[in-house]
């Protein structure tokens, strides 16, 4: 099969080849990383529609800069772009912003059994993540929800391994405290 490098192309053909290569690379990035980016955006506090829109932003940025992205750094580029897009969108969307005391009054969950409805469980999880420190939340998402190893987390965030490990420990503590706060907020009759 011919490749770009072994074809002698006219200027017009070369332009077409460049377009084709850009498109193929973007498609590979999309296939390999889109779902991860979408889940990341969702867990950073965006609604499903917001995550759809933000993912579109991220990949349009990637399309614009596809020739600037280093081979092997695609995930890192998309990840960083997604964090920036999510920060901007979250400021407007305010979907899961909680009061300081972790008030669950706005949650649709009234009883633990209600969490069997996945949508409600996701909603509560989103509220918990929304109240978590950004750095801790990012590590928690990557390690606990995406199942990445600590070296992978450390590499993606470009932080020392010890820092990543420490953040995960504190993120878990925050998560457990939030879940405990939720359980404590339930009416006594429901808990017993």
């Amino acid at each position, binding site marked *: 099969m011919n490749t*770009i490098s072994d074809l002698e192309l006219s200027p017009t053909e070369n332009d077409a080849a460049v*377009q084709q290569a850009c498109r193929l690379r973007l498609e590979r990035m999309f296939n390999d990383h889109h779902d991860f980016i979408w889940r990341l955006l969702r867990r950073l506090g965006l609604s499903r529609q917001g995550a759809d*829109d933000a993912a*579109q932003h991220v990949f349009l940025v990637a399309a614009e800069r596809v020739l600037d992205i280093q081979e092997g750094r695609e995930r890192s580029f998309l990840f960083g772009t997604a964090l920036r897009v999510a920060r901007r969108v979250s400021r407007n969307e305010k979907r899961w912003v909680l009061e300081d005391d972790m008030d669950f009054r706005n949650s649709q969950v009234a009883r633990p059994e209600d969490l069997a409805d996945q949508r409600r469980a996701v909603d509560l999880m989103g509220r918990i993540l929304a109240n978590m420190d950004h750095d801790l939340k990012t590590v928690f998402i990557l390690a606990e929800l995406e199942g990445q190893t600590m070296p992978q987390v450390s590499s993606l965030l470009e932080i020392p391994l010890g820092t990543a490990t420490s953040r995960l420990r504190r993120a878990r503590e925050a998560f457990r405290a939030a879940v405990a706060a939720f359980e404590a907020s339930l009416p006594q009759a429901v808990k017993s």
Partner: protein
Amino acid sequence: MSNLKLVADEPTPLEKMLLDASRAEQPSEDHKARLRAALGIGVPLSGPLAAPTPTHNAPPPAAAAGGVAKSAWLGKVALGVAALALAGVLLFTRGGSAPTAPVSPVKAPVAEMPRPLAEPAPVAAVPEAPPAVSPLPPVEATPQPHPARSDASAAAGDLTEQIRLIEAARAGVAAHDAKAALAALDSYAQKFPRGSFGQEATVLRIRALDQAGDSARATTLAKSFIARFPNSPHVARLSPIAERGASR
């Protein structure tokens, strides 16, 4: 030190329920299909590098050589997104048949981008590619060259017309009106032999042919399509048509 992962305490049932729910959440196929269309990926290859199956091994071209061509492609991407947003058309998922009803749009985010997208390039700036090397029967490749346009508004008009024809074909298939669907697809192929929605046009043609009872052509096209685009979201829908032919 490799593969280090903290050993977690056993989560409580409630913690596990929350974690599992969050882990299970995925983007919808509708969103992915629309974004693919907006990005201009997952459409049939054309030009000198067209191959029976897409390859992901092509090395990246030199940036210096790629600027102009990439801008042209990006112009198409941006234009495609904008046109889809303007038309308010959902190409892949809507069950209804009214071709002009507004639905959940693919937003045009150009103005909100951290960096502005390249200005939509005039269609005339996009180099004309040689006829596609396609294993598919040439049903979508009627060699009627589309007149070159010289401005972006004309290109946007083209995209709107493409969307209209594809929507008409989709509505025909949804209504089991194969004749109307094929007429729209013939028009699309004639006006836009290298249109932005060639893949979708082929999928619709396969379904229309199948509905019209032309199962032999439908099967041939379906097999070629699946061989060429094995990762397409349309494969699941076309597999029964392709396999039905294989079992005969």
